[in-house]
């Protein structure tokens, strides 16, 4: 798209406008009130409008002045780091700390291009022991150690 001269500015402006639009749209459902008696919609709608204006200026700047391209997303670290953490959060009440840690360390290690599976396995076992000692023995967090059939 050659008409976008500064892609970084252009897309960040669009992002801010999108957030601004959401803020204005959602907060228009809240009572606005008047300046002397502000309702819950007053402040967020003001911020949303400001964000829309700033976003528009930044987008325009992206159309007018030259800038670098936006670097591409590298899929592997993004998916393996963030995805693993989300799955970890969802399964930990059932898998317990030990199994959860083994899963997280092993799969998250795969995000690096230097992945070595034996090393990841050993690290997982050691960290599972460390996690139990630090979080459950040391800090006394209310988390199961073992998977659900045994975690009473």
């Amino acid at each position, binding site marked *: 798209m050659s008409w976008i001269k500064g892609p970084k500015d252009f897309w960040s402006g669009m992002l801010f406008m999108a957030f601004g639009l959401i803020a204005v749209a959602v907060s228009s459902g809240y009572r606005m009130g008047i300046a002397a*008696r*502000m309702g819950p919609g007053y402040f*967020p709608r003001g911020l949303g409008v400001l964000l829309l204006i*700033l976003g528009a200026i930044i987008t325009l700047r992206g159309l007018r002045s030259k800038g670098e391209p936006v*670097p591409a*997303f590298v899929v592997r*670290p993004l998916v393996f780091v963030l*995805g693993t*953490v989300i799955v970890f959060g969802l399964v930990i009440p059932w898998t317990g700390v030990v199994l959860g840690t083994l899963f*997280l360390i092993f799969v998250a290690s795969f995000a690096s291009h230097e992945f070595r599976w034996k090393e990841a396995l050993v690290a997982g076992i050691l960290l599972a022991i460390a996690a139990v000692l630090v979080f459950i023995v040391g800090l006394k967090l209310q988390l199961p150690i073992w998977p659900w059939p045994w975690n009473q």
Partner: protein
Amino acid sequence: MDVFAHLATGFGVALTPINLVYALVGVLLGTLIGVLPGIGPVATIAMLLPTTYALPPVSALIMLAGIYYGAQYGGSTTAILVNMPGETSSVVTCLDGHQMALRGQAGAALATAALGSFFAGCVATVFVAAFSPPLSEFALKFGPAEYFSLMVLGLLGAVILASGSLIKAIAMIILGLLLGIVGTDVNSGAQRFVFGIPELVDGIGIVGVAMGLFGFAEIVGNLESKEKRHIVSGKVKGLWLTMAQFRAAWPAVLRGTGLGSILGLLPGGGAMLSSFASYTLEKKLAKDPSQFGKGAIQGVAGPESANNAGAQSSFIPLLTLGIPENAVMAMMVGAMTIHNIQPGPQVVSSNPELFWGLITSMWIGNAMLVVLNLPMIGLWIKLLTVPYRLLYPAILLFCAIGVYSVNNTSMDITMTAVFGFLGVLFVKLECEPAPLLLGFVLGPMMEENLRRALLLSRGDPMVFVERPISAVMLAGVVILLLIMALPNIRKKRDEAFQEEAA
């Protein structure tokens, strides 16, 4: 003398065994993350915040503060030995510190950094103790209009002194303010931006925001590049200075300390700005500026003292006005809020033990750092050889369990991952995340003060310019904006940051 009585109260708190232990844990962890590149103080404080819920507030703050100034010490070790900044505030230490190391003067450079930092820490502690009470007394007179104007000035000042595009930074602040008011409105009870998600009714947690933006995003970013780290390890001997080196270093230490203490007070200031400014100053004052970049001891002594002084004096606006001036101070606001302490001028009078305990613990922490770190340098160097592929999964694990344990819900981890994704996106679009965090912690306070100010004035916006203190602050805002609009100054600012980045 009031100050001495107060300091005595402080030492009474800070010297209890439990608080000594937490100060020690804080400075050790701070040094650790300072040494290791790839995880900064903001992410670390976010990681540890959940574990401090059960502690008394003063112990929690003592530990978290220790992390911040401990990181300044640790960062210099990596900078000197590996030519890689462990923290952003030690970027300039690389320049001359590593050159000294290459000439076999690593020991002298490390000793200069440690002793300079200790001296600066001692002076800055006294500075904080002397300036905070009068400033907070003055701030007690502030009404909601003054507070609102002060927050506008503080937020704007913070982004002007930071690098990068100004307008993007302002947009990030506003986005942060919006994120900050997600949840139940205290005044009307209305649920805002909740989207039917029950976990959002209490608002978005600062731990998730900070850990996502500063922790996860950083890890993903590090894994994207395929560069390998070069570890230069060698024997470090003779951790001491010759008389000539000492004589060359001490004026730089004094200047760095003074500069850092003052720059730390400014919004956006703190460790990083102080060290850059001190390096520039030392280079200007030097008899032979050509020596800089080739191992000038002043180039280590000045910035290292300045960053530590700046790290400490940046607590003054936080403790007296309740205004955080950088991302680490925003985390401290989060920590205080979690313990039901509203940061602001009333802290000195309502929680004197907390206030003075925290200040005196800074001095104790600095003393610990010198005593511990010089002998432990060998251990820190060993840690540098742990490869990143082993390090980051462990960091992720501790982050994930930490976030989960706050409320025992999976939703918190998902939220953190969402902010991690946003963080990656912001880096690619060159939007700094720090202003967002500042806006985030100030959001509810700003709305409350705006509401109260306009309620008292019956909706008349002139209240902000009719009250003199508020008017002065808003005039400051206008002046800052005008200055930034002048093309010459903007060019100078860009150049300054380019030079620093190079």
